[in-house]
């Protein structure tokens, strides 16, 4: 085709929009445009309160935020002091232990 380079690029860019939009429609329920966390993983405050003692809270915020206020019983586990904080976190939780609130199981 004898179009200029810019026009060729524009045509390709425009053509790619069609399947792109089609895919966006197809996957519209699998992804949220507002937040990276899928809606199924989000919990409301009421839900969290209902869990009560059956969950371990990991607070990934920086130390100042954690010191200022945090969920009672929450364990701090942030990027800045990851190596220091990990052992005490693992003391309370181990991989594979059931933490699903829906099953209502308590952590040992």
């Amino acid at each position, binding site marked *: *085709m004898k*179009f200029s*380079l*810019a*026009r*060729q*690029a*524009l*045509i*390709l*860019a425009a*053509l*790619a*929009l069609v*399947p*792109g*939009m089609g*895919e*966006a429609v197809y*996957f519209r329920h*699998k*992804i949220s*445009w*507002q*937040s*990276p966390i*899928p809606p199924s993983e989000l919990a409301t405050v009421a839900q969290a309160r209902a869990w009560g003692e059956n969950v371990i809270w990991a607070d990934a915020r920086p130390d100042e935020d954690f010191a200022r206020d945090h969920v009672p019983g929450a364990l701090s586990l942030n990027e800045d002091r990851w190596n220091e904080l990990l052992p005490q976190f693992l003391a309370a939780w181990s991989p594979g232990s059931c933490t699903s609130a829906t099953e209502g199981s308590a952590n040992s």
Partner: protein
Amino acid sequence: MSGPSTLNVQLSTRPQFPWRIVDVIVAGIFIYAGAIKVLDPVQFANDIDNYKILPWPVSVALAFYLPWLEILCGLGLIFRFLYRGALSILTALILVFTLATVAAKVRGLDITCGCFGHASQHWSFPGLTC
């Protein structure tokens, strides 16, 4: 009419064989990469978001759009359809991606490049650069 002008026309319209091979290989890589990302746009959106350069909604939009652009340009390369435009777009994509990767490395982000979706999760950056 004949002579130099005919020769010029021949040189510019007959693609030279070695470059055709490069075309096909590069196009094949992009089509493969694009296809993998088409199948899992959620993962790709998260990979883009990991670079922490763009806002989330833009990451989602690009996750849906870029793979198709890659596939289309790859096809353009193979079938010599809008060839120069396809080549420019792919070059631009590589350039932008390289810049983003450098930015991520400089900021100390330990992330997967996301080029080939789930398949490239464990590749190190040095390996990828090679």
